[in-house]
């Protein structure tokens, strides 16, 4: 029960910020895919920068454990290509489709219905997929610092500096 309340409050805050950042909109999502408006990229990278510092700090202090998923090349590459195709058609991703309905853009409801159907189809296809593409290129639970054999506090500042250079370039180009 307490977890459900945590979920609702966390989602509320996240939805509020997504709406304030104007990233729920079809025009912003298609704008990013058409390389016309990088608002979404700015929002996501800013979120990732803060998140990576905070979460690794919590881990180092023993207050949290990372939730690392296995990297399996087959399903990740094929799944990402399918996701990109669907995202371009729908113009919302799973989380933002709910927020888009919240701000009145009810065309996202069609997408939500489609995504529930897509999830049901995936559940049907799962046994077949597990016997095939899920065996293609299983690299296990890897992270970038681990592959490079360096401490994560070496990678994190590099990532932040790279993001800041990208932001400066985007602002200069007026994207």
């Amino acid at each position, binding site marked *: 029960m307490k*977890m459900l309340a*945590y*979920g*609702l*409050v*966390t*989602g*509320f*805050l*996240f939805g*509020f*910020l*997504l*709406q*304030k*950042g104007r990233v*729920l909109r*079809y*025009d912003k999502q*298609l704008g990013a895919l058409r390389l016309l*408006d990088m608002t979404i990229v*700015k*929002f996501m*990278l*800013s*979120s990732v920068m*803060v*998140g990576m510092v*905070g*979460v690794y700090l*919590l881990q180092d202090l023993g207050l*949290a454990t990372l939730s690392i998923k*296995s990297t399996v090349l087959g*399903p*990740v590459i*094929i*799944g*990402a290509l399918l*996701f*990109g*195709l*669907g995202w371009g*058609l729908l113009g919302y991703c*799973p989380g933002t489709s709910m927020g888009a309905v*919240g*701000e009145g853009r*009810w065309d996202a409801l*069609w*997408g939500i219905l*489609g*995504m*529930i*159907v*897509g999830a049901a*189809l*995936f*559940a049907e296809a*799962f*046994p077949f*997929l597990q016997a095939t593409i899920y065996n293609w290129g299983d690299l296990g639970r890897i992270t970038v610092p681990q592959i490079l054999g360096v401490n994560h506090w070496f990678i994190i500042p590099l990532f932040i500096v790279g993001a800041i250079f990208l932001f400066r370039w985007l602002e200069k180009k007026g994207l």
Partner: protein
Amino acid sequence: MKKNDGGWSPYLAGGLSGLVGVFSVWFAGQFFGASTSFVRTAGMIEQLFGSERVAQMEYFINVVPRIDWQWMFVVGIFLGAMFSALTSGSFKLQAVPDMWAERFGTRSTGKRAVVAFTGGVVAMFGARMADG
């Protein structure tokens, strides 16, 4: 692009959302995600038609169809976005997005429905495949 429509800087809103994510990991041990909730919803709907079949499906054994933290998180996104939109005057009932209307006209609700639904099916299949 117009900047002064009452929205916040994406750097500020994005950074704060990262902070919300960190607190979520700290206090609830939960990382942000949304697509698993669509699987749980699909399973809950399918249970209405035949719970025995659902109980035997491998994927629904892994991802049990029930309301959990993430499901409520997704509901919260809807409510938070609605609160923000209504209190800032940016709530707008729209059947087709502006950019879509520029290309296909404002009276293309049917076409938009077909494309958005199809996109949703494909996007969710891909997202689940990549475990995202």
